[in-house]
């Protein structure tokens, strides 16, 4: 092989590799992207049914119901709309009624959301930015009265089971 040919082989290998990586990459990206919705989006039928999405909202007080085994249902709401969520598994440490969470799962044909993953954040005043924005409040705090007061007055009711 002449020097020129060998260089062309190199360039070919490189281009081929880059192209392959790009194709695979964008295919994988498209297939694994999850959109974020609020209960209002779901109520307005903005979200696709039976596709994996992320749903963020506040857990409505008094809505948590335990079922058989590890099954739980609760209502997730933003300031305007509610959606019922079904989840089978262990809730995160920071899951509390009145608190903001993000559930990953799919919206069924019956309008109920089945989650396979529930995330809660570490700070009681902290909320995932996308959720905070969804709730139309810029500072990361929220003030939907039915759920939780801004200054944490309802703190004692929030403490986990452990403290009882």
């Amino acid at each position, binding site marked *: 092989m002449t*020097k020129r040919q*060998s260089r062309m*082989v*190199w360039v070919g*290998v*490189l281009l081929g*590799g*880059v192209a392959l*990586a790009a194709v*695979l*990459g964008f295919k*994988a*990206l498209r*297939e*694994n*992207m*999850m*959109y*974020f919705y609020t209960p209002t989006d779901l109520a307005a039928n903005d979200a696709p049914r039976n596709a994996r999405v*992320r749903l963020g909202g506040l857990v409505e007080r008094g809505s948590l119901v*335990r079922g058989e*085994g*590890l099954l739980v249902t609760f209502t997730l709401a933003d300031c305007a709309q509610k959606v019922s969520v079904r989840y*089978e*598994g*262990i*809730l995160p*440490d*920071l899951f509390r009624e009145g608190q903001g969470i993000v559930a990953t799962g799919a919206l069924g044909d019956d309008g109920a959301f089945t989650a396979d993953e529930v995330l809660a*954040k*570490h700070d*009681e005043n902290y909320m*995932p*930015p*996308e959720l905070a924005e969804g709730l139309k409040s810029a500072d*990361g705090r929220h003030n939907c009265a039915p759920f939780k007061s801004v200054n944490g007055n309802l*703190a004692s009711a*929030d*403490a*986990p*089971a*452990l*403290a009882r």
Partner: protein
Amino acid sequence: MAEIGHYALILALAVAIAQGVLPVLGYWRGDQRLLGIGVSGAQTQFALVVLAYAALSLAFVDNDFSLTYVASNSHSQLPLIYRLSAVWGAHEGSLLMWLLMLTGWGFAVSLSSRRLPPDIAALVLATMGAISVGFLLFMLATSNPFERQFPVPAEGRDLNPLLQDPGLIIHPPMLYMGYVGFSVAFSFAMAALITGKLDLAWARWTRPWTTTAWLFLTMGITLGSWWAYNELGWGGWWFWDPVENASFMPWLVGTALIHSLAVTEKRGVLKSWTVLLAILAFALSLLGTFLVRSGVLVSVHAFATDPARGVFILAFLTIVLGAALLLYAWRAPRLVSDGAVQLVSREGLLLLNNVFLVAAAAAVLIGTLYPLVIDALGLGKISVGPPYFNAIFLPLMVPLAVLVGLSARIGWKRAKLGEALWSLRWVALTTLIAAVLLPYVLERSFAWLAIAGTALSVWLMIGALLDVTHRVRSRRDRWQGLRSIPAATWGMTLAHFGLGVWTLGVTYAGLFSVEKDVRLGPGQSAEIGAYTFTFQGTEHREGANYQSDLGTVFVERSGQPIATLNPEKRLYPSQRSVMTESAVDHNPRRDLYVALGEPIGDADWALRLYYKPFMRMVWFGGVLMFFGGILAASDRRYRLERSALNAPVTSAQTAAT
């Protein structure tokens, strides 16, 4: 005392400016005295930052809650060791730690500067000084840890309980050492571009620094993964969380840099590529800082957010990367290669390895930044989950693993592919047999992914040893042969072997883990494979600064008791936060993992049970790479004095290690 710390930082800024500007002026004018300011500046700056760091530590020891930072991250009940580690427990302090590392690296370079030509040493230190200026400005302007508050609170708000763990005491410093360490390679690259000299000697100076930075990063990532496994209570060891990615991207590019530096040293080629990688590795470290500190991410690691900080770091990143790339575009064409690269040669394979590593880093970068870009453009809120990263990352690792074994039998410069393949026939055969047998013997499986993973792992481990065995065989006296192997080769062997061990762990823990979330009352049990987990209930405990429910779980295997595990649920009242302390019974073969979920009803608990085969191998592989890095960085040939002979050995590398 706090004011002294603050004052020391301001002084350090002044010194850093002098250190960043004057040596460059000296280089331009050929003024030796100005060049010398690099060394004295780096040492003064280090002393000042140490002073500031000591001042902050003292404030934590004394529970000086008049400092806002101390009050928000400490508590009088907090054990002393955690009060000391709380210094880097949040944004401001970890920035100070970052700065301490940066100036520490500068100090180490200044100590070894006698081995470098004065102009190179001065330019390297000037670059590091300029980077320091950026971070000092950032700190003084937006994140001063010495800020006082009034009125002084009687009690602190306590350290985030997640961080009250031995793993977390050393994870951040290790990670920062790695991140910041790439600034040295970056500075050497700048010096090479400015002087236009990039020769064998330059590669030899740069290699140990890069390897040292890399080994710290390796350890930092490994520790982080181990900590997440133990503390987060999800039993996972890697989540493709954006902040994990932020540390993983510099690691990938840093790994590529180590390999391309080897080529530059041995063959004098790929020079401008090496320089580019050095720039990228540090740029990705800065990007990591930006991602973690700006609050654009939703993550375990995201500290309290302040948009001004994000903007500052982004501007700093733009300036550093922009200036470096401009200089690169202008000067890199001067870096002439000493020869051409043949595809079938060790340097050719190393270049391929670079392509795969950089492609992997690019894929991770796209997955990490894409949601941010989409959000910034107002196109919706999306997230990219682990399936994307697994789908893209794992296929890219396959050719890398194949290359490692292959390159052991391919020489520098030019080689015959056929001969190399033929000489590997027994290795290949062994690999194949092992790959088919092992998954069946260990897990009763013929899954093709398990076979492929085992094959790669065995291939890597044997391939790693080939270099050593070959060197031993080529001597008549085997013992002599063994002793003549340089430390760098041992280091490479160990690190590649570690990669094989890691692959084994990832394959088995990934494919054959069994997870069960169950609801158990006292006396009830659940089974995973041959293991029976019996829940005995929980009892209440009082810890130093927390209360806990301590569970007891007996594990039996076919009637034989294996272990008693005590998973714990802790409540830290000062922050009103709950922590899950999982309990793990482990041996090299498997982990049995139990975490308490939540209490349900009167005495029932939700429990998370795991069986994870070869889980330890994932971290053990990382540890092997770490020690491989130490061996490689300590190779004697990097410590050869410029002026040879008599000078005493002040090895900055060992000091830094």
